[in-house]
């Protein structure tokens, strides 16, 4: 088991991801997995503000839709090339995140969540009603596929799969950098207690806003990918149920862990696929599983495992010496790493 922790584990996941198209039975499986990756990318972003910084944002799918519509509108109505539109999808979402964050992050705790819930709904309404810009309920049809980069074209499910996988890997890698750095620790300090963090000299607004903008940048890019992958957009993408789905992925895997949301975002959609025959009733199966999970594994699968491991490691250290005598010699060992 311990050989799977840290770098080897991530490399194994990378290898599995690269090999998946050769293991998948048909294109449909590839499509399911690619879609899961897109939402995984958005979830990894959501986890930064909700899981690491402790600000439960419920407008996340709205930002994803903003990214998606940026690509949709620019490519279909203004004939902008996909890649430029895609780059702008992250930028537009981040810019909007700056202004909305500036207002919403003044609120704390549940008030922030309720406020962003409303913001998300307003984003949905604007997309649905502003027909001259967004095509309203008709949606945007005929979004071009990502244009070829040199010899690499994206016209097959397999190449699209690798494209999406590439961005997920980059996204997770950057997130890994962020959360394990001083910056990530700053965010976690705010989550633990913003009063304490502020008394430690951490400017709350600036850091929360940064986390929020980074988070919706991921949502915007995921939306841009979604537009290029599905090639059809409706206002439903902004629906709050997508945010709740992503929240579920985080809870299943483990809030505030890097691997957790990824695991949740990849496993839950497959479970949904297998329960497809139950149609809407599948939540009869889903609901109880989720409740049991929250009761018995409140830190999610990854969070619980990491807690268990950290505790075991902590117990292993003083075992070498009598734990009762307060020995003053520092224990030379690098601190626990975050998965």
């Amino acid at each position, binding site marked *: 088991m311990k050989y799977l922790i840290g770098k080897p584990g991530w490399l194994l996941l990378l290898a599995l991801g690269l090999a998946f198209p050769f293991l998948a039975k048909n294109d449909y499986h590839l499509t399911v997995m690619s879609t899961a990756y897109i939402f995984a990318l958005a979830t990894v972003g959501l986890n930064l503000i909700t899981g690491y910084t402790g600000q439960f944002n419920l407008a996340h799918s709205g930002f994803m839709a903003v990214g998606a519509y940026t690509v949709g509108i620019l490519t279909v109505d203004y004939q902008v090339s996909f890649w430029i539109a895609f780059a702008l999808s992250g930028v537009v979402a981040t810019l909007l995140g700056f202004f909305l964050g500036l207002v919403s992050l003044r609120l704390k705790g549940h008030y922030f969540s309720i406020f962003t819930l409303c913001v998300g709904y307003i984003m949905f309404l604007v997309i649905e009603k502003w027909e001259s810009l967004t095509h309203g309920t008709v949606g945007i049809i005929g979004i071009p596929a990502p244009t070829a980069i040199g010899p690499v074209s994206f016209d097959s499910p397999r190449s699209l799969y690798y494209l999406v996988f590439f961005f997920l890997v980059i996204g997770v890698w950057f997130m890994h950098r962020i959360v394990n*750095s*001083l910056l990530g620790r700053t965010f976690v300090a705010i989550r633990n207690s913003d009063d304490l963090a502020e008394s430690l000299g951490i400017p709350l607004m600036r850091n929360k806003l940064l986390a929020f903008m980074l988070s919706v940048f991921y949502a915007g890019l995921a939306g841009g990918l979604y537009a290029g992958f599905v090639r059809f957009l409706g206002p439903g993408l902004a629906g709050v149920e997508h945010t709740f789905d992503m929240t579920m992925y985080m809870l299943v895997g483990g809030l505030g862990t890097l691997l957790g949301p990824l695991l949740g975002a990849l496993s839950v959609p497959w479970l949904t696929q297998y329960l497809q025959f139950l149609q809407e009733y599948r939540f009869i199966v889903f609901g109880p599983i989720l409740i049991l999970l929250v009761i018995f594994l409140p830190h999610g699968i990854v969070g619980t495992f990491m807690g268990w491991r950290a505790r075991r490691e902590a117990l292993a250290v003083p075992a070498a010496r009598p734990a009762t005598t307060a020995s*003053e010699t*520092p224990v030379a060992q690098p*601190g626990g790493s975050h998965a």
Partner: protein
Amino acid sequence: MLEIRNLTKRFGGLAAVNDVSTTIERGKIHAVIGPNGAGKTTFFNLVSGVHRPTSGSVHFEGLDVTQLRADQIARLGVSRTFQTTALFDMASVVDNLIVGHRLRTESGLFDVLVNSARLRREEKVCREKAREALDFVGLSHIANRMAGDISQEERKRVAFALAFSTGPKLVLLDEPAGGVNPEETEGLADLIRKMVKHGLTVCLVEHKMDMIMRLADRITVLNYGEKIAEGTPAEVRANPAVIDAYLGSEHADV
């Protein structure tokens, strides 16, 4: 070092702190005492920038800090602890302390993205400061223990270590010995003396009278938000207004 002039804070019609003036001298232990609801914690919140006063001023080393935010005041060298310390229970004690030195670092998002030399250097410094602080409070033996598994007294010491790692000149301790037994209280008092010996100035709010009387150089007594007495422990103990308002019969027979 810290000069407080006519400090007043009103919440609606209630004056939680009313026209309090005092001076905290460098290298001393200054205690603020008073019955429950006397405004001690509000007083701390005003001084540390959590709340803005309704009127009055706070000067730290000659600089007017009345309108500054808590994080700005912390960067000037005023650190505080809370009655309860919220730690990240799922991480080790030393990991919890690394962020304590964050305010003395510069690295931002760009450093993180390119993994700059500055970021690596600052992370190293933060880790060293965390270890130093743990050493200082006598907890290096539990550096790798999960923060959720440590005792109340150890938690208090971690709070001290967090405050210490910010590199402060003045430390405000809010009930540093709340909820720990007498023996441990003595240990914490020793730690406070050690901080002063280390060149820090300490201001604390505390309920444990015997600890205060032996520890403090100077005591300010608040009652209903107003300062009713100030002086050395002996002076305060002898002050009839204090005996009336606070110490009462409990201390009359000492």
